[in-house]
């Protein structure tokens, strides 16, 4: 239960930041998303994001910043293993599950549902 609360709290805080950016700035949603991924990469690189993951679990890994963190982690791992080439291979390799899931589920939803106006 305590894990759930921590995940809820951390995930919530990250989403509040996103909402504030939508409400208070002129940034488009696409830019905010890219910003989140890049922040995740930087925080992952600095070793800060892994601490957030340890504390908040899914609250840190599920938001887009978590995706950035995974990219950074993958690159660092592959660089250690293969040297410079790891810069190009590590990120996508580590994020393979997330990317493939996004494409697969995106495709399924696209062929099974129809867009409508929110009621």
């Amino acid at each position, binding site marked *: 239960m305590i894990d759930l609360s921590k995940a809820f709290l951390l995930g919530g805080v990250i989403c509040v930041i996103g909402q504030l950016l939508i409400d208070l700035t002129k940034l488009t949603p696409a830019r905010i998303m890219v910003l989140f991924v890049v922040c995740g990469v930087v925080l992952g690189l600095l070793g800060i994001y892994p601490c957030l993951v340890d504390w908040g679990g899914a609250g840190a890994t599920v938001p887009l910043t978590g995706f950035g963190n995974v990219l950074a982690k993958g690159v660092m791992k592959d660089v250690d293993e293969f040297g410079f080439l790891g810069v190009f291979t590590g990120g996508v390799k580590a994020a393979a599950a997330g990317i493939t899931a996004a494409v697969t589920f995106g495709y399924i939803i696209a062929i099974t549902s129809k867009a409508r*106006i929110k009621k």
Partner: protein
Amino acid sequence: MAKRLGQQTIVLDKQPIVLAGAAIVGRKEGDGPLAKYFDEVVDDEYAGEKTFEAAESRLMRDAFIKALEKSGKAAKDINVILSGDLLNQCTAASYAFRDSDTPYLGLFGACSTMSESMLIGSILIDSGAADYVACAASSHFCSAERQFRFPLEYGSQRTPTAQWTVTGAGTVILGKDGQGPRITCVTPGKIIDEGIKDANNMGAAMSPAACDTIVQHLQDTGRSVDDYDLILTGDLGSFGSAMLRELTVRNHIDLKSKHNDCGMMIFDLARQGVDCGGSGCGCSAAVFSAYILEQFRLGLLKRILFIATGALLSPTRTQQGETIPGIAHAVCVEA
């Protein structure tokens, strides 16, 4: 024959008549304060079609057919259809009328299309080039989101201050003879760009154009605001309307209580969660074709200045950092 008056205004001798109008709108508009004036409210955003774009064409075609019916004219009586919408290549209009078997002129004036079409239509009738014309405009929330922001399928969050594109189509039939209010003079507007860059704040981009056209019209005709029962702008919204008042005051014109805006009339802003109001070609088209014509029929209006306002916004140019040019065309309608 049409005569020039002053700098930009054209006085119409024959005073073409607005024989009838019809408007078909979507669910949200049908839930608004003007619901009872519309000819039809379509609950399904697809209007029985496969895509939003096809749905918009459907609304436009149905509004045209409805307006024809009400005017007592047949499609073959119409000499030309003047129509436009917000989509690339005026998609909604050209697909709506591809089977109409009637000469068609596509117009792009962004949200100013309705008054632009009435302006050109009335000059065609005045010159004798046409006996009856149909003027139509449409917009659709879902197709406009795809065109100007993000496709709904993408599921993007909307900016809270963005205006809400009206789902709707309006058509009026103008004729050389018959019963109805008359178009007595028109003032085509200039493109005015005051350097607004925010595509979510189109009211601000359009209000300088609306102000310019109003000032020019009053100057050309020697009239004052008091000579009108209503000065009706297209879709400035609450923010753009406030800005228009300020701009007109700077030009020593007090709009008093004479000004209203179709974008603010079509929705209950607070209850329906549309902060700034409605926008889109369909907004002024539907409000004029349904509500305003009914007010004339009831004798509640004697003379109005209808000024549909357009933000000549190009998503490509906006992304390249360009500002948004605005335009507004005025049509004077009298009982």
